[in-house]
């Protein structure tokens, strides 16, 4: 089979794929050969096996919506607000990640500045260790951070700067933890960046005093406090009588991370980014963890109940959880019905970073009467996609590591009224004449928690029902 050709209707490749039970859309679809395995359509009538291939690197030459290792590390650690974040490399990596994530802090805001060693040609030739050392000393002297994270970029992996040694030296001289983050861009996908970030955090965990921490205590992992979401979640748990030792990393503080091992349970959202840390903490400190999601009524409630169940010797915790849920749902339900009345029967396409979020979104959309016709993620794994398949309606397309050609094509074919995605997907949705909801870094209002479900429904309603669509050519220019 010749490499990378369009898979057209009637072609032998297509027949083969259909035989294999992989539903490829017809006509001149732009699915890269070598990518067919990453697209799946749930078919009716026959028992099928999902055979999606995922967790592989993107094909060279594809217009992928994915990012790199550095990006993964940077987004995870970025919200630690009283730490210094120094990007070691040429200027770009620091410039593009300067305050791009609305991870809100209730106090220090050192994380919102951009620090770079701004490597030049001579540094690439002779090494950047000296520059890194001097920069660190200068910065720590000036800003007195509680800790420093040093991000290694592509080029550091090539020129062989020993950043571990520099960090060690500076740590010794300044007395604060100086942590290397091995996030060379080419060393994998964004997921590997999450791992590198967790490795660095793990070095901080366990270095603080755990005196006085309640046995009914948790760490909130994988919650980045976009638009203040971590505050909402924290409040729920605190109302239940649970002590929140740390949030990682939303509104994060170095000292809180240092004593995180004092908590008795890790509650992990956005499982892609923080499971590594949870597993490491389980291994080293015996702290169990559970996966949760704060999006939608169903999952939000479950995340409170699951935690309450964990502390079963304290029935008052469960009582409190029930009270929160019933109170919030009573408020929320009638509001959602209003949206549901209008949105019922509308179709949504979801393409987000992690698959776990997709599960919640499908449920949340159903609760306002919407169905999902496309569900995809940048970094899901096989289990995720299997679960997606089980959840989805017939005819739903499931994609891994998609690209704009595929997305527009499926959105048009499935006649979606809404696309949920991130910064690069927004203008595509608008060009196609359909509504959009940012469920990524650029959301400006909290979408987590019960209030978040209301905001989400409102945002979806606002966009899908906007009067602008009566003027805009829609759905391929047909309407």
């Amino acid at each position, binding site marked *: 089979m010749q490499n990378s050709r369009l898979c057209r209707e009637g072609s032998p490749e297509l027949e083969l794929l259909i035989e294999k039970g992989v539903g490829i859309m017809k006509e001149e679809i732009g699915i890269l050969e070598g990518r067919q395995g990453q697209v799946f359509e749930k078919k009716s009538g026959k028992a099928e096996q999902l055979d999606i291939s995922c967790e592989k690197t993107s094909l060279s030459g594809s217009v992928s919506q994915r990012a790199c290792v550095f990006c993964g590390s940077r987004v995870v650690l970025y919200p630690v607000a009283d730490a210094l974040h120094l990007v070691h490399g040429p200027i770009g990596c620091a410039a593009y990640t300067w305050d791009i994530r609305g991870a809100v802090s209730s106090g220090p805001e050192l994380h919102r500045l951009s620090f770079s060693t701004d490597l030049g040609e001579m540094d690439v030739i002779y090494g950047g260790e000296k520059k890194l050392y001097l920069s660190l000393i200068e910065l720590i002297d000036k800003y007195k951070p509680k800790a420093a994270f040093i991000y290694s970029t592509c080029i550091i992996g090539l020129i062989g700067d020993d950043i571990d040694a520099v960090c060690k030296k500076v740590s010794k001289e300044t007395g604060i933890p100086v942590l290397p983050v091995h996030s060379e861009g*080419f060393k994998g996908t964004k997921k590997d960046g999450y791992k590198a970030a967790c490795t660095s955090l793990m070095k901080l965990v366990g270095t603080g005093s755990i005196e006085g921490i309640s046995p009914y205590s948790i760490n909130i992992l994988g919650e980045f406090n976009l638009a203040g979401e971590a505050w909402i979640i924290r409040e729920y748990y605190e109302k239940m009588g649970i002590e929140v030792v740390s949030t990682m990393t939303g509104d994060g503080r170095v000292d809180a991370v240092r004593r995180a091992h004092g908590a008795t349970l890790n509650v992990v959202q956005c499982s892609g980014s923080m499971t590594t840390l949870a597993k490491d903490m389980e291994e080293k400190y015996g702290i169990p963890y559970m996966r949760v999601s704060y999006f939608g009524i169903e999952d939000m409630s479950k995340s409170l109940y699951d935690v309450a169940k964990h502390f079963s010797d304290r029935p008052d915790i469960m009582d409190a959880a029930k009270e929160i849920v019933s109170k919030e749902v009573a408020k929320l339900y009638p509001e959602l019905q209003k949206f549901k009345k209008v949105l019922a029967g509308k179709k949504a396409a979801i393409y987000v970073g992690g698959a776990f979020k997709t599960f919640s979104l499908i449920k949340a959309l159903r609760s306002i009467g919407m169905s999902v016709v496309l569900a995809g993620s940048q970094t899901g794994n096989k289990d995720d996609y299997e679960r997606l398949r089980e959840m989805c309606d017939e005819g739903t397309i499931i994609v891994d590591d998609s690209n704009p050609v595929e997305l527009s094509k499926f959105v048009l074919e499935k006649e979606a009224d809404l696309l949920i995605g991130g910064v690069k997907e927004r203008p595509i949705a608008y060009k196609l004449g359909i509504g959009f909801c940012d469920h990524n870094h650029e959301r400006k209002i909290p979408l987590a928690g019960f209030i978040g479900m209301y905001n989400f429904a409102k945002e979806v309603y606002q966009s899908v029902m906007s009067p602008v669509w009566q003027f805009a050519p829609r759905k391929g220019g047909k309407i």
Partner: protein
Amino acid sequence: MLLRHTPKEVIAREGLTINPAKTCQPIGAMYAALGIHGCLPHSHGSQGCCSYHRSTLTRHYKEPVMAATSSFTEGASVFGGQANLLAAIETIFSVYEPDIIAVHSTCLSETIGDDLQQITKKAKDDGKIPEGKYVIYASTPSFVGSHVTGYANMVTGIAEQFAQSTGEKKEQINIIAGWMEPSDMREIKKLSKELGVKIVLFPDTSDVLDAPQTGKHVFYPKGGTTVEELKSIGDSSSSLALGCISAEPAAIALDKKCKVPFETVDMPIGLSATDRFIMSLSKAAGVEVPDEITAERGRLIDVMTDMEQYFYGKKVALFGDPDQIIPLTEFLLDLNMKPIHIVSGTPGQRFEKRMKEILRRIPEANFKNGLNADMFLLHQWMKNEPVDLLIGNTYGKYIARDENVPFLRFGFPILDRIGHSYFPNIGYSGSLRLLEKILNAFMDRQDREALEEKFELVM
């Protein structure tokens, strides 16, 4: 205050950049390549680079931005990226079907020593480039220069790799656009049409990054300089490069390859620079300046005279890219304002030389470019000598808020406002718009902060 840590006292820093007034080369190359019709920019490096550039351009233009990446892995970084690029070229032509792939390098591929010229030649020899299709390239190491350098390198690549001399001169003039907005490029075409001069403008991102809503997502919008036009630039009678940093290198390359004489003028921002642009273009084409343009100029001067009392002595801090900052500084001086603090992250001696000339009337002005010329320094200068107005890209908003200074968004990137892609800042009408925005910034502040008894209805 977000920047509460910025101390007033300026001390020398050793190799540390805080809040940069620049970014890296590849994004400039990507932007330039989007100004060719049917071209897919290709980033030869890790996936993140391409993703960051597309996101930044999308945030700036609110438009889909298409570009492909070689998606380097650990293996590629050890054994070289040739296999990745060859595979990418094949994939792109078969799936995304562009007319042209414009490859730019990154710090990663440069450091491992990938030779784009050799790899693209190999792609051609191996028959991976279909008949009538093109692969062009530019070397854009992120550790040299800035985003402006990357733009200049790609524009140079475009000129060098497309231009042909047929021996027959054409009655047309090349206008090589420095880094400007689609709106500005549209304005250049409008002015040239009014002058009656046939031009080839390249690159040209109008109708690419300001495309209308159609209900479709088009990979290759209708705008962009065409291959046919680009081939003809070698036969043009002359070239006019708009900007000594971002456009002149392409003009030099074209002169070298096809003997097309060139002149470099500043980007036509403000009265004087627009005058020079109009004069140069009309002279090169041997045409008279039509009344239409003269009247437009007259209107600008009319507003300048009407409003002169409001501009006098106002101190300004500005930052951005050299080719915009140079004529903008001149315009501010023409308006009788005092640009006193100026930084540009883009290195190069041309900037310093030009600024020295332009600012000779303001001996106290601070200006710096290149290493450590970042927004941290600009902020420190502003703390030492406060200003009435700050001009620069979106990143200036932190300083503006902390210092309570009116802020005019200008340059790249602008992530929190719209308008730049639709309304030009160049030519007489663009300059009038700039003037209006500056004036409004002062007036809005006055109305917002004036004491009740001093709050006036009339200007």
